[in-house]
């Protein structure tokens, strides 16, 4: 019998569960490796060569090269590990986080100062059906 996952109907959200972790293990371990300064240097010098050292899928590698964080989440990435890719690029958390939304970093920071994104209209997938 399948495990019930009531969190699958939260919009704009990929919950990092054991199944996602299974898909993303090598992707997240690659990202973890960027905590080491020498590894950051080698990655920046030749991204493709460095990525080939890890047992990642082609899709995962391409999404890293594209810095497509939403895609990386879907492919099993976890944000705390993925953030280390952003850190390697010299990005702040606000820059990394905003890149996954409709806002740029300045708009995102302004939204946060204004109290953040409201939960109203953002609880269930069906509430997002009419979004452009």
């Amino acid at each position, binding site marked *: 019998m399948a495990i019930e996952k*009531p*969190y699958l109907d*939260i*919009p*704009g*959200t*990929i*919950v*990092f*569960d*054991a199944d996602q*972790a299974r898909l993303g*293990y090598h992707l*997240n*371990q690659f*990202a*973890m490796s*960027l*905590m080491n300064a020498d590894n950051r240097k080698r990655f920046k010098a030749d991204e493709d060569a460095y990525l080939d050292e890890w047992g990642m899928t082609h899709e995962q590698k391409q999404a890293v090269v594209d810095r497509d*964080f*939403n895609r990386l*989440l879907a492919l099993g990435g*976890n*944000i*705390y*590990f993925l*953030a*280390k890719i952003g*850190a*390697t690029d010299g990005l702040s*958390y*606000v820059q990394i*986080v*905003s890149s*996954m*939304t*409709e*806002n740029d970093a300045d708009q*995102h920071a302004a*939204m*946060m*100062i204004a*109290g*953040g*994104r*409201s*939960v109203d209209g*953002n*609880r*269930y997938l069906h509430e997002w059906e009419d979004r452009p």
Partner: protein
Amino acid sequence: MSARIAAALFMSHVPAIGVASDLGKTEEPYWKPLFDGMQPARDWIAANPPDVVILVYNDHGNAFSLQMIPTFALGMAPFYEPADEGWGPRPVPTVEGHPALSAHIAQSVIPAGFDLTLVNEMTVDHGLTVPLTMMFDKPDAWPCKVVPLAVNVVQHPTPSGRRCLELGKALRTAVETFDDDIIVQIWGTGGMSHQLQGARAGLINAEFDNRFMDDMINDPEVLAEVPPVEYLREAGSEGIELVMWLIARGSMSDLAGGGSPGEVHRLYHVPASNTAVGQLVLENGTVTA
């Protein structure tokens, strides 16, 4: 005499708060209201210093990779160095542990049914060091010892609220059977509402957060039944960190027949970077015989 838990503290551990302190930005308009708001907690702890803090927090992919995912990991070491999270280690003091209390906790809590993972060597990330900064500012050395208790709230399933509250109760028994006349505080950290990922990132739910603090004070047994999905939906994907507050709350004496806790300090502030900040100081009530 034995050890006693004098108070439980609850607070967010947003990394940007640590950065603001480390870079001397606390007087800037963005940060000043938050740091001013935390001052009463700092004044209180200066007058009520703990010998040891059991600090409940989560690692954020720094000390632990995904190679192993312990649900509850208890630090056993004499020292813990601040982790390099990719921007270099925070310029804060080394954290001094209390191995004897750690060993006692393991020997009390595991037989009581909580299968802790015991960790003899680990670094500690912002989840542990930011609360120390929030309470103690920038000392040359931290003024107390720390027993780290790292909880997995990164990879689901996480422990339930009920499990966390019950672990807190077991920790109270452990501390109160430690034959050393020391004052212990238990800190539950993380939260409040925030979401760092996906198109819904930036979510803040002040109503949820404030109700959570009300229930944390007055109704923890009911709060412990809130399922993980409600945190995820209402408080954002990273809002699940709030279950860790229940471990600290479970350690308070009112849940074992003592008096009601006394509220010393309560703060709520939005935002710190992407996150809502909450801070709560509750003193254990005196036992009414």
